């Protein structure tokens, strides 16, 4: 609200940050670990008195220089540029608080550059001992850069006392400082080893290729295992909410886990198979695959770190959209638009509802949502929601989804935002529906008020068919047992009955679906959260017996799932139904 927002509706700033930062950290961690790798590669060449290994080390040093000095250093500046463009408020806060930390990092960056140039250009032209010392100086300077940056950006995820005190040292030595430093150091060594593995695959001399492939693979395996262990340490110091997000409550992180795990696994397999056991298999495509694996691991980590901070950009201190939690009361009371800079609509009226809503969207939602883009497309995500549903959803957005910031502004501003999304983007009617106390309209109204932020009415069709009104009311009162993202419905008795009748489909004119077959059991017990297509993927190629067993321990499979509450017979027919689904049946 303090700074202008660079609005690229179809692209989104988050994607740009991700692209630049993932590529940068992949190279910058190489710049750290690679220093140590070069020293030990050179020592190996000297110890074995091997000219070919020394030649390999020099070639690798040249590759190192080209990658780290050009791409690494410029993309580092690039991150600085892009975060300042996408989130100037957070960047400004960090720069002003930690300016001398950044400045000290700049000193090490300078030493790093000078040492890297001397190391490469004086390779073989200096006595070996001094040359190795130059290598050590490079590595120490690079690692100190990592240490300093780690302290500063660590505060974004684990701010500790800094959130209140803003004390430099409290922020720098935040709760995540040491675990993150150890984790990143091992990750840097893993990545450096992968680059060494890659370099080795380009070596024509077979003997050197085998020797340096094995050398690199040993580094990679040991450091990757150490990174995994320290990763768990890092995880253990995360604040409760972030910990929950990392363990699967964040859809972003949940979708990343298979990729990251795949990256780790592929690295383990490649380094063991084509590195240690059969180093001759380290051909260029294999090495490229290893690099891809390392990139995926690095990207997975960075993206997870980013998503684990939600709804904040600086945990507990600043929301992702740059709004400070301490300003919320003022903004809710006096209005966001009146207090924000860089807006044209200061008041919301009937005439500017959509235009004001667009400005509110740009200021409060665009930090994470694109309009018609690939990244969290607001058009796709709200396609099934009516104006009224949106209006209600906006009020309690942060309660329904922890990882989203609360809407800041008055009720009228909330309606303007809903009008922009429903009317401006979807072309839907943005008039308040005439509310009635009776019948279908009342049931629909209650549904929209309470359920439509997550569910479309058609998705729930048939779920409650055949279920008694009283039982539906009972389930509505214990929604939190189904998922901790839901809250029990707390309406009056009359409202409970109206909503239950609506859900049952009586007021939608539908015939209740009867039966105790697998599909009916699935409809009753699973479709609250799962669709058939989604379930097909989950149960693909699973045996009936395995599925039966899984149904008995759903809560252990995923924390968010409640235990299966049906009878044994229902569990049996459901397992059969799911097994059929998993084999491609319907």
């Amino acid at each position, binding site marked *: 609200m303090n700074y202008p*927002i660079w609005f690229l509706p179809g692209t989104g700033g988050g994607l740009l940050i991700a692209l630049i930062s993932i590529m940068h950290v992949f190279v910058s961690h190489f710049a750290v670990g690679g220093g140590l790798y070069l020293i030990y590669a050179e020592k190996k060449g000297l110890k074995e008195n091997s000219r070919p290994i020394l030649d390999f080390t020099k070639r690798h040093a040249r590759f190192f220089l080209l990658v780290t000095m*050009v791409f690494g250093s410029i993309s580092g*500046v690039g991150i600085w*540029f892009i975060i300042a*463009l996408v989130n100037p408020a957070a960047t400004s806060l960090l720069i002003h*608080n930690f*300016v001398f930390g950044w*400045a000290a990092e700049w000193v*090490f960056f300078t030493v790093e550059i*000078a040492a890297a140039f001397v190391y490469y250009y004086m390779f073989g032209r200096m006595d070996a001992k001094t040359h190795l010392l130059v290598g050590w100086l490079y590595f120490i300077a690079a690692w100190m850069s990592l240490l300093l940056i780690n302290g500063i950006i660590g505060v974004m995820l684990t701010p500790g006392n800094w959130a209140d005190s803003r004390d430099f040292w409290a922020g720098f030595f935040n709760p995540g400082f040491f675990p993150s430093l150890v984790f990143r150091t091992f990750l840097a060594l893993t990545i450096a080893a992968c680059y060494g593995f890659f370099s080795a695959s380009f070596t024509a001399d077979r003997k050197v290729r085998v020797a340096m492939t094995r050398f690199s693979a040993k580094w990679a395996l040991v450091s990757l295992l150490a990174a995994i262990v320290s990763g768990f340490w890092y995880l253990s110091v995360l604040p409760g909410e972030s910990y929950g997000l990392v363990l699967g409550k964040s859809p972003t992180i949940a979708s990343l886990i298979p990729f990251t795990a795949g990256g780790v696994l592929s690295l383990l397999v490649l380094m063991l198979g084509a590195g240690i056991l059969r180093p001759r298999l380290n051909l260029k495509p294999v090495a490229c695959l290893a690099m891809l694996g390392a990139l995926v691991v690095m990207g997975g980590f960075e993206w997870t770190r980013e998503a684990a901070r939600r709804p904040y950009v600086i945990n507990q201190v600043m929301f992702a959209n740059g709004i400070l939690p301490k300003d919320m009361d003022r903004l809710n009371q006096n209005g966001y638009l009146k207090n924000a800079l860089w807006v044209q609509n200061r008041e919301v009226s009937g005439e500017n509802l959509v235009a004001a809503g667009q400005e509110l969207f740009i200021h409060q939602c665009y930090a994470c949502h694109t309009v018609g883009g690939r990244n969290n497309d607001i058009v796709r995500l709200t396609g099934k929601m009516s104006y009224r549903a949106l209006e209600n959803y906006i009020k309690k957005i942060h309660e329904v989804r922890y990882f989203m910031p609360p809407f800041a502004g008055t009720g009228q501003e909330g309606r303007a935002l809903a009008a922009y999304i429903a009317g401006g983007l979807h072309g839907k009617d943005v008039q308040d529906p005439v509310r009635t106390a009776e019948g279908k309209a009342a049931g629909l109204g209650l549904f929209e008020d309470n359920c439509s932020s997550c569910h479309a009415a058609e998705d729930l069709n048939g779920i409650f068919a055949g279920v008694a009104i009283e039982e539906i009311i009972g389930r509505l009162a214990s929604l939190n047992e189904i998922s901790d993202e839901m809250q029990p419905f707390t309406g009056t008795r009359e409202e409970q009955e109206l909503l239950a009748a609506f859900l049952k489909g009586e007021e939608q004119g539908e015939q209740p679906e009867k039966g105790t077959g697998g599909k009916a059991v699935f409809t009753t017990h699973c479709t609250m959260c799962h669709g058939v297509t989604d379930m097909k993927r989950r149960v693909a190629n699973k045996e009936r017996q395995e599925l039966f067993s899984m149904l008995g321990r759903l809560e252990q499979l995923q924390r968010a799932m409640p235990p299966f509450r049906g009878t044994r017979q229902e569990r049996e027919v459901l397992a059969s139904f799911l097994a059929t689904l998993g084999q491609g049946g319907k």
Partner: protein
Amino acid sequence: MAPLIIPQPDTIPVSWGWFQLLLLVTFPLHLLAMNAMLGGLAIGIVQQLRGGPLQRQLAHRIAIALPLVIAFVVNLGVAPLLFVQVLYGQFLYSSSVLMGVFWILIVPILILAYYGAYLYDFRFTRLGSAGPWVAVFSLFLLVLVGFFLSNNMLLMVTPERFGEYFAHRNGTLLSFGQPGFWPRFLHMLLGALAIGSLFVALLGRFGKAERPKLASHAEKVGMSCFLILTFFNILMGFWYLLSLPEELRRLFMGGNAGATTAFAVALLLMAGALIVTYRKKFWLAFFHAIGLVVVMTFMRSWLRSAYLRDVFTLDQLQVVPQYSPMIFFFVILAIGIVCLGWLMKKTREAYRLEQGNRQRLKN
């Protein structure tokens, strides 16, 4: 007139004077490296296109030095960019967003230019006649980066244009249409080429004993380019001065004692540089030029403050004091300088040993 949109600045940990000092110390270093990069590359291209063994040798030597110089241009640009953000962040972040598309383009452009420079260096011989065109490509990209930087530096001090954000939410606003942009940019560019010429002369002096002809040629080319370019840049400078709004121009014409003194010193240094260059006194010309860059940095700083004085002065920045991080930085800086000194010493020793061995083999 619509009210100006200016964000609230964040607090700073020590008095603004420290940051101003650090900015004034580090920015000239960046400028000198940038001048060496642009001037060196431009002269290298011309030398290679002209042909002749000495010209080719000089171009090759420039090509070898170029990646190192670019690395330090970037590195030395980081510190002043950091300190200027601390002092003027509310203006710089805003103007950067306003021209976001071009501002972020600097990154890929710089990467391309840098790889071009490495290609020019590592493949100097193999590139043959294509070499100068690779270098021209890099030079063009580097000038383009300078163009975008100049746009932002002018935009950030003209907050009256910030209201145009609403027509440029996608970050496409530039300031090259504003009065004063072109003389400012061209003054900077010509100055860079001129000072860079002296860098070429300096480069020729390395290994003077081994290649005296190359050293003499480099000095001759560098000094004469400096003389000619500086002469034209004086005219450009006056154009720039005249293009400034009157109240800002008056600052250097007696309106402000410090700014006027700095301007007078700059004129004296300029005259001195021209005279000693004409008399072929390299080191004197070199130090005059360095002095000139430092003084110009001071003048630039005055001008920026003057542009913004109606809406912001540095003493408005709120200090929440914490001095220990600054002390930590100065300690690290001292360690860093010692490390750089050690690297230079060891490199020089190894280089001398290598030269000695070569000489012995020759004998």
